[in-house]
């Protein structure tokens, strides 16, 4: 079988002057996959997309689409299409002519009745029947977004590249478009590569997510892997696990952890907290260690209540944010440490927590997620 992958990057690098935008990146994306490149601005995710689309040429390495090397092909000879962040609809053309733009080019030789049929089909796919005669500026942001999608999909590319396509939409519309994008991808069965800085967006739609930093991957995996077990401090922080501690392993196999897998270890943090963590295999006593705890894993109860957790501390509530279903508590542990906890609002209401309350907080050994020792050295 000649075809092994939909898109492949082999040791691709791209510099702009002194800045390394993409740094020796390799990647294989399977056919029909919904793959997201996630990272803060400047991490190289958009450059990676443009390298695949041919709008940038790599300084080193190769780009393969559908098993063929396309590194030196211009964008108009590649079987990929981009949905741009600002939509990039042609303002001087109607919606119909925008969508027909690619079909009508001489290189494609599509007959005019066929063009009309394909355009109508594309408009139907994105639920914009009847909008063909309008101009882009007569459409709302969400509608323009869908036209951009239709314009790219009508050419039936092997791979669709989406550059933060929902960035300009408001929250409600963004949610609806996420469901819509999944539906369309299932319908057309094309590989989607999706660039975003929004972890919720990446998680909710993707089969796999690559978290990017400084032009390379910090972690690559399913949304669940990345959310539940971030491998580095950067990923943990970026995915919103705001509780990150540094410390040192002080004992191996110590403490009775509930439901813990692998070897438990005891850690003393820089501020003197003693914490039991599971999954400690391969860590040796005295070694420096970092771990993260998701706010959802941190439980909070009144001091007088009897309850069980591997790690329990006395603490003071210093901040409280009501978020609807859940309430976020900012809790001080001694002078230097503070930790975020997310509890169900019904629990918060039941106990009537308020700022200044002394409380008991805790989490289990399995909720400690140990991070790689050097957060920069991980490569996928």
């Amino acid at each position: 079988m000649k075809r092994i992958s939909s898109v492949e990057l082999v040791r691709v690098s791209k510099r702009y002057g002194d800045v390394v935008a993409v740094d020796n990146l390799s990647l294989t994306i399977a056919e029909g996959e919904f793959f997201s490149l996630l990272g803060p601005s400047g991490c190289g995710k958009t450059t990676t997309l443009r390298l695949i689309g041919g709008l940038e040429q790599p300084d080193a390495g190769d780009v393969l689409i559908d098993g063929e090397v396309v590194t030196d092909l211009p964008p108009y000879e590649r079987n990929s299409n981009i949905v741009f962040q600002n939509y990039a609809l042609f303002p001087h053309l109607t919606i119909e002519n925008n969508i027909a733009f690619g079909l009508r080019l001489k290189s494609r030789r599509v007959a005019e009745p066929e063009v009309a049929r394909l355009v109508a089909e594309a408009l139907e796919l994105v639920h914009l029947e009847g909008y063909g005669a309008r101009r882009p500026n007569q459409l709302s942001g969400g509608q323009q977004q869908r036209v951009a999608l239709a314009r790219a999909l009508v050419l039936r590319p092997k791979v669709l590249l989406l550059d933060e396509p929902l960035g300009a939409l408001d929250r409600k519309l963004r949610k609806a478009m996420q469901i819509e994008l999944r539906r369309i991808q299932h319908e057309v069965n094309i590989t989607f590569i999706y660039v975003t800085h929004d972890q919720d967006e990446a998680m909710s739609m993707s089969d796999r997510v690559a978290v990017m930093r400084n032009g390379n991957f910090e972690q690559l995996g399913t949304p669940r892997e990345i959310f539940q077990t971030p491998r580095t401090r950067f990923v943990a922080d970026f995915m919103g696990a705001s509780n990150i501690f540094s410390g040192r392993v002080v004992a191996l196999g110590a403490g009775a952890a509930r439901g813990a897998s692998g070897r438990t270890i005891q850690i003393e943090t820089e501020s003197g907290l003693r914490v039991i963590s599971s999954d400690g295999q391969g860590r040796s006593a005295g070694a420096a260690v970092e771990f993260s705890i998701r706010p959802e894993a941190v439980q909070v109860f009144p001091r007088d209540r009897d309850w069980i957790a591997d790690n329990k501390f006395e603490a003071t509530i210093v901040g409280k944010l009501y978020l609807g279903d859940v309430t976020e508590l900012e809790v001080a542990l001694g002078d230097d440490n503070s930790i975020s906890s997310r509890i169900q609002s019904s629990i918060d209401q039941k106990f009537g927590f308020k700022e200044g309350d002394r409380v008991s907080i805790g989490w289990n050994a399995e909720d400690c997620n140990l991070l790689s020792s050097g957060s920069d050295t991980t490569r996928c």
Partner: protein
Amino acid sequence: MNKASPRLLSIGCGAVYLFMYLPLLVLVVYSFTPTEYGVAWEGFTLKWYIAVFNNKYIQDALKISLMIAIPTVIISTAIGTITAFTLYRYKFLGRALYQGALYVPLVMPDLVIGISLLLFYTSISLDLGILTILLAHISFSIPLTTLVIIARMQRLDRTLEDAAMDLGADEWTTMWKVTLPQLMPGILAAALLTFPWSFNDFVITFFVSGVGSSTLPLRVYSMIRLGVSPMVNALGTLIIVAPLIIVIIGTYFDRRSVS
């Protein structure tokens, strides 16, 4: 500022406008007065306008002016578009210098430009006449058209060209089907600004024109040398009205290009 200020300011503003436009108004008024050498109002007449329309010299001069202004507009807009495109799109050594150089002719005295052109044409033994006027006009119009089109280019959305190429259009197709349509309002504005720029020029034309190639401003000047007649006032009034119309059209296109 207190409540009286806006009124004070608009009175001041009115005075400024009076100061700027009263002389033009006086010219218009006098163009309708019958007395030949007087400067006082002595009744209404259209005779100077009739004289203007019947004057063969003025007709010839108008023809020559248009024969120069129209090709100037077309050629300098075309060259300006290409120059702007080159300067804006390609990075090369000294590009900033090239772009800065465009401002030079705009702040140099016409007199010096006129002298240098005269000197140049003489030194390459080019006979003065309509051709030299045309060359001169094109040469001083190119900086204007280039700058206007560059200004428009800076507002151009580059991702539109990325999108066109991504959809399968090669560089030429992208330029014709996407870049140029976007640039059109700027090109039109440049053309509409160049027309009065060429049509009105006196000093430079004065130096590079030969015998029998008098443009309208040169003709007006020679009429004045024979004494300020109300016919000049009538002609002046007509010349005021023409660019007014062009300004209105030009502003309209420029507004459209902004929005």
